[in-house]
């Protein structure tokens, strides 16, 4: 069976997006997205863990028996997260200070176990890694969108402290969109996270519906055209 990589990309980024379609991983989503930068950092760390866990689970899938698979997956994910946490603390210390609290939370991200169970355990290593990468990027995209929306509404800036995350050369990303903004606190607090997420989910539904309508309209037009000739 050949692997449809375009399908994997589409699923990860849009059709089966962890946040916008599966509505999984809301705990880390709401906890870290008070700024776009935090969302980006958390998203990239999660992507890394998703790829590694996908690879490991896929590599061992032939020897893991069905009855004990869940504890084995949990063990693999927890080990990877702990190793990522320790190496970030040692070698990316400034970033770890910003995200340190949330890294252990990656273990609780049900989407990782979800991908291990529903994809990596049934597929070879390469598609599993690709799936991890795409699911992770989709998650990162969601985190950045939610984070950016909350940051702009809440404090009038965009990508504040991006320098800490990406290095000096990315200082240009740090924008103050609304100078002398007095802040709109509720967007930064957890309820604001729920509100923004709710509006974004509704937005995606509307967009999907319109795309669907346009697709069926063009199909109808084609059929009509064929009949006319």
């Amino acid at each position: 069976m050949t692997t449809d990589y375009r399908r994997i990309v589409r699923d990860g980024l849009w059709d089966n997006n962890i946040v916008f379609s599966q509505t999984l991983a809301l705990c880390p989503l709401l906890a870290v997205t008070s700024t776009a930068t935090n969302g980006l950092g958390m998203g990239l760390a999660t992507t890394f863990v998703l790829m590694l866990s996908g690879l490991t689970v896929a590599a061992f899938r032939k020897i893991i028996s069905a009855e004990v698979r869940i504890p084995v997956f949990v063990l693999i994910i927890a080990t990877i997260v702990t190793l990522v946490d320790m190496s970030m603390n040692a070698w990316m210390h400034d970033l770890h200070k910003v995200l340190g609290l949330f890294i252990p939370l990656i273990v609780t991200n049900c989407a990782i176990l979800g991908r291990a169970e529903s994809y990596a355990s049934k597929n070879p290593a390469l598609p599993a890694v690709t799936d991890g990468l795409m699911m992770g990027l989709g998650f990162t995209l969601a985190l950045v969108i939610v984070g950016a929306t909350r940051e702009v509404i809440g404090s009038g800036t965009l990508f504040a402290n991006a320098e800490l995350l990406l290095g000096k050369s990315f200082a240009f990303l740090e924008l103050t969109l609304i100078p002398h903004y007095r802040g709109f606190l509720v967007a930064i607090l957890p309820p604001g996270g729920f509100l923004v997420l709710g509006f974004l989910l509704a937005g995606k539904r509307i967009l999907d519906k319109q795309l669907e309508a346009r697709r069926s309209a063009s199909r109808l037009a084609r059929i009509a055209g064929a009949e006319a000739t």
Partner: protein
Amino acid sequence: MSTVAEPTYRKRVGYQSSLLGGFSTLAAALLMLGYNSTYEPIAQRQADDLLESLSQVLPDSLHDNNLLDNAIIIDDSNGKPLTIYRAMKEQHTTGFAYRATAQGYAGEIDLMLGVRPDGELIGVRVLAHAETPGLGDKIEKQKSNWILGFNGRSLSNTSEGEWHVKKDGGRFDQFSGATITPRGVVKAIHDGLMFFKQHREELAVMTENEAKK
């Protein structure tokens, strides 16, 4: 695809338990390796962090020693050991720095206090807190100058009644929408100075003994 039925040996308890055991052993080995190779860099980073927070309350002009070298440990009022870092210049003690904990609105607030030998505050900084962003976080120096209002204060130039926020009749500002946070910080700083006053002689003796050596 795994549509083929699982081989029967995989159903055996022995296989499953050795599988779990094997993965646990592997995980433990990896974690050990990871811990060993990151232990030193992490300790180094944490020492850097500590030094940085110390240098905010004990400016470089005050000392020529390594702040981490001349630390003293004494028990605080709760009997917990508290590390007191010492700034020294030309063999004389020019200041002390130690941690204090304030009760904020959302848990504990970690403070670092810098004090002159005569009990006057050099400066105070917030090391860690979980206060509400936009309200209680004005205790950070990055967000507001409020914390600088403690510079130069001491128990002798600010009376007991003045060590409160203005709402409680004291002389320190509260923030609009957040009183609990500054109230906790003012109290913690006051308690920190009281602690220093109680142990001042003890500290003086300790430093003198060392100078004699």
